[in-house]
């Protein structure tokens, strides 16, 4: 499992970048998750103002959305 970004919701604010303990997130207009670094601790989910982050296996779409 890893965190996935919903590109239709992400606004690119980069609030998720500093809160990742594993430096797995980068953002240049859209958040991107480094799947090799993400341990799915899900800390970033609470910091996303637009609910664009979710848990899932698929890189493109959060599970169930």
């Amino acid at each position, binding site marked *: 499992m890893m965190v996935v970004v919903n590109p239709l919701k992400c606004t690119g*604010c980069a609030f998720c970048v*500093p809160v990742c303990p594993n430096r797995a997130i980068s953002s*240049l207009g859209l958040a991107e998750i480094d799947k090799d670094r993400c341990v799915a601790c899900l800390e970033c989910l609470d910091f996303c*103002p637009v609910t664009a982050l979710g848990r899932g296996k698929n890189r493109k779409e959060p599970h169930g959305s």
Partner: protein
Amino acid sequence: MDHRAHCDVLILGSGMGGLAAAALLARDGFRVIVAEKMPRLGGRCSTMDYNGFKCITGVVGVETRGVVQGLFDRVGAGFDVKEAGPPHYLINGQICQVPSRGGMKHLMMAAGAGAMEVETVMNAITGALQWRAPSSDVPLGDWLRQYTSNPRIMEIFQALVSAVLFVNVNELSVHTYFEFLKKLKGIQRFGYAPGGSISLARSLAKVVVDHGGEIWTRCRVNAIKSRNNIVRGATVSRRGKNLSIKAPVVISNAGPKETARLAETGIRDQYYLRELEQRMTPARITALQFSMDEPLFESNHLLVTGTQSLNSVYQPTMVCPEWAPDGAHLLVAGSAPRNSLEPFDGKREIEQCLADLRAVFPGFESRARLLLAGTFQGAWPGMHSLPGRDMDRKTPVINLYNVGDGVKPFGYTGLPGVVATGIDVAEEVMGRNRILTGAP
């Protein structure tokens, strides 16, 4: 529903509009609950600790001796803001200081305008400020072009309105511009909070808690509840549980569109929903934050003219070294697209802002290391509405209010505008309560 709670006023969101209302109401004896979805307070007036830097979430500088400080004084909240000197302007590659009097005249001279031309523009401005406000539907750019054809003069106005009002000279109505100059005096004094902008949010939150209020973080709102067109409270998720909060008054800091979505089943007025779609235009901005070994220039704030999208560069560590590790500096560059309505491409905006920085500051690339690149648009914009396009603070649902930068008073912008909405709504709630209870 797992649990129930109740309060006098439920506030959705701990942005500065919500916290301003919460602090005033808590001090007046109302039992207040503030529900914040994030783990930290302040929304876009907050701080992210990153690599030892106090990175911004939106607000960089804070207006002093104005609406914001007035609110803090009124509720007895600590206002720890270190005043900075006035902004400088970058005109024709030269950094120009702005004198406290005759600033605009000085800037136009620096832009190479002749004495006659400066006189003509200044006379028009004096007339608009002191005699008659120009027509509301004329863009500032068109109005100015009656008095000058000098593109460099236009660029001075462009830098100011783009940085402060998040809109372009050809999009902002001249009426809104002069109302801004009258109401906020162009924001003459400002500074930085040594503890980061989040310290302002924490200071108001302390007032709320000290007066018996509660602030719940990691608390997401699922729906705003109403019956017979009167608000009843909200359902929220907190610590994995669903909770129903009963409240006779709900103040939403979530933005007018999100408020309407959350209250969907309660809003029957289709014309209000249509107005939300047609009138509200979010302000789109880009904020790039850099780590520097030394300042790029000798000023804490530079308004940049003549660029494609870059409009301002802040060096808060020149005033508050606390914002960076020892010996380092934080630089914040702000930009906005030249067209506020065309589709927004975040990656392109970031690249344009970087290109402008490289063009304006020789050797920028070797001196600055990018920490964070944030784009603010769509559902999480620079402001929920451009100045002059704000919605009413009352929603169609009785006792459901909006606060924040989608409902600013006319002529207001940014943090002062946001705080003014909190004050306005809190006073309305206090006034109506006095009528209902017969209290003096």
